[in-house]
C-alpha cells in the first residue's frame, strides 16, 4: 500500500514537476513587450508594465509593445513602431505599438489589424492623452495609459472616454443657455436705432478711414499626423510631439 501510494505520489510529483518546468520555461521564454532603451522606467516598473501588456495581449488576442529610444537612427518614429511590431508579432498580426524618442520628443501610436479597426477614429486622441502624461514625465502612468486605452473596446469603454468631452461641451452649452435665459427673462427690447428715425433723413456727411499700423501675432501650431498605411495588414498611425 505504502509502495503503491509512493508510486502514485511519484507520478503526481513528476507530473507537477514537468508542469512547473514547462510553465517556467514558458514564462522564461515569454515575449518581451517593452523595449526601454531610453531608460525611462525602473526595473519594477518595467515588470509591472510587462505583466500588464501580457495580460491585455491575452485578453484582446493581440500584441502590444512599447519602445523607447534616446534618439532615432535612420528611421522616423512611425517606421520604428512598425519595425518593432513586425519583428515581434509578424506582418499580419493585430495589436498596437507605442514608440517614443526622447531626443526628438516624438511620440507615435500605431495600431494593427483588429485593434486598428476598433481605434481607427481615435488614434490621435489616444496619442494625445498619452502625450500629455509624457510631457509631465509620468512615464509609468503614460505606458499604463497606453495599455488601458489600447484594450478598451466597446460602447461603454468608449462612452467613458467621451464623457469628459461631453461634459465640457455640456458646460459651455449650459452656460450659454442659462445666460440667454437670464438675459431674456425680462423680455426682449425690440427698439433699434431705426425705429424712430425719419425715413431717408440720415445723411453721412463725412467719413474718414486712416490706416494706422499693422500688428502681428504668432501662434505655434501643435502638429500631428495620422493615417493608414499600405501593406498586407490593416493599420494606422498617429504621430506628434510631447
Amino acid at each position, binding site marked *: 500500500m505504502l509502495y503503491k501510494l509512493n508510486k502514485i505520489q511519484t507520478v503526481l510529483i513528476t507530473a507537477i514537476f514537468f508542469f512547473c518546468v514547462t510553465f517556467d520555461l514558458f514564462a522564461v521564454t515569454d515575449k518581451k513587450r517593452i523595449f526601454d532603451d531610453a531608460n525611462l522606467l525602473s526595473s519594477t516598473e518595467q515588470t509591472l508594465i510587462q505583466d500588464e501588456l501580457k495580460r491585455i495581449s491575452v485578453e484582446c488576442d493581440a500584441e502590444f509593445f512599447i519602445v523607447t529610444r534616446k534618439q532615432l537612427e535612420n528611421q522616423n518614429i512611425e517606421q520604428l513602431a512598425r519595425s518593432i511590431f513586425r519583428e515581434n508579432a509578424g506582418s499580419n498580426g493585430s495589436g498596437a505599438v507605442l514608440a517614443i524618442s526622447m531626443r526628438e520628443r516624438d511620440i507615435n501610436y500605431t495600431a494593427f489589424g483588429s485593434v486598428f479597426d476598433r481605434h481607427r477614429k481615435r488614434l490621435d486622441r489616444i496619442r494625445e492623452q498619452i502625450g500629455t502624461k509624457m510631457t509631465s514625465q509620468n512615464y509609468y502612468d503614460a505606458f499604463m495609459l497606453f495599455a488601458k486605452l489600447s484594450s478598451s473596446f466597446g460602447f461603454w469603454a*468608449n462612452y467613458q472616454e467621451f464623457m469628459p468631452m461631453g461634459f465640457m461641451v455640456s458646460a459651455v452649452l449650459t452656460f450659454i443657455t442659462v445666460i440667454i435665459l*437670464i438675459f431674456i427673462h*425680462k*423680455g426682449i*427690447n425690440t427698439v433699434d436705432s431705426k425705429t424712430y428715425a*425719419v425715413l431717408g433723413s440720415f445723411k*453721412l456727411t463725412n467719413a474718414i478711414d486712416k490706416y494706422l499700423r499693422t500688428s502681428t501675432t504668432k501662434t505655434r501650431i501643435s502638429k500631428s499626423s495620422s493615417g493608414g498605411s499600405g501593406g498586407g495588414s490593416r493599420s494606422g498611425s498617429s504621430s506628434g510631439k510631447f
Partner: protein
Amino acid sequence: MAVENYKCKTCSAPATFDIKLQKWRCDYCESTFEKEDLESSLASDETIETEEGPDNDSAQLNEYRCTACGAEILTEGNTAATFCIYCQNPSVIKSRFEGNFKPRYLIPFKITMADAKKMYLQWIKKRIFAPSEFRIKGKVEKIRGLYAPYWLFNCHAAGYIEGEGRNSSSHTSGNYRITETKHYYIKRSGVSDYDKVPVDGSENLPDEIMQGIEPFNYNEICDFSMQYMSGYLAEKYDVDSEKAKGALYPRVQGFLRKTLEGSGARYGSTTISTTNVNLSDIKVAYAMFPIYILTNIYKGKKHRLMINGQTGKIYGEAPFSVMRCLVFTVVMFVSLGLIIAAGATVLHVI
C-alpha cells in the same frame, strides 16, 4: 374738482370705451356710441356737471365726489381717470386734462384685459426661472389697465463718432499661425431726424420697462379725447418735458451713434472712443398711451411688469427663483453631457 362721466344716451348708465368695438358701450343696455354722440350728450346734460373741491386749482387736489353715488373719493395727485371705489362708476377728472395737462395725442387700448391676462400667462410660462406661484391665474387678477403719460419728441440730431477699426487675416508659416491685424482711425459724421421718440412722463413708471414695451404703432395715433379715458385709470404727467429731455438725449445719441457705426466702410471689429451728438429743433407733444401693469411681490421685492395695451408686447421684472435656476442648470448640464457623450460614442463606434 371737475369730474366728467360719460353716460349712455339711452339709459344714463355709465358708458365706457369698448376695445373690441373701438366705440363707447353702455354696460347695462349695451347701446353703443361714437365719440361725437357722447360729446353732444355731455353738452346737453346739465345734471352731469361736477362737484367742486375746496380749491379750484384742481391739479393739486386729491378729492372728488362721485356723481353716481355721492361718495367722497380720494385720488392720488396724478390720477386723471379712475373709478368710484363704492359703485365702480367711471370718472374722468376733467381738470387734470386741461391747460398744460391737455394731451395732444392718444393711442386707444387695442388689447382687452382678458387678452392681456392670457398674454401674461403665456409669457410667464416661458420664463423658466420664474417661481411657480407666479404662473397661476390668481396673480393675473391684479393686472390693471392705465393710460400712461408720455412725452413725444421730434428732433434733429447731428454728431460724429471717432474710434478704431480693425481687420484681421491669418495664414500659416511653418509651425506658426500668423495673424495680421490692420488698425485704422475712423471718424463718421452725420445727421438724422427723429419722430415721436417717446419718454414716459411718470416718476412711478420705470423708464427701462416703459422702453421695453415699445414701440407703439403710430399709424393708430389719434387726437386726444377725454371720452377714451372713461372706464380706465389714467395718470397725468409728473415729469415735465424739460426733465424728460434728460432721458431723450442719451436715447437719441445712442440711435445716431449706432447708425453712424453701421455706415461707411465695414471692419471686423470697431472700438468707439468718442461720441459727440447734439440735438436741435426739439419739439414736444404730450400723449396718453395704453399699458397694463402687474406688480408682483416676491421675497419682499416689487417686480413690475408692463404690457403694451396696443401691441401686446410684454416686458418687465419677472420674479427670479435662484433655486429653479440652479436645478435647471444642474439637470441640463448632466443630461446634456450624457447625451453628447453617448452621441459621440455612437458616431465613433459606427
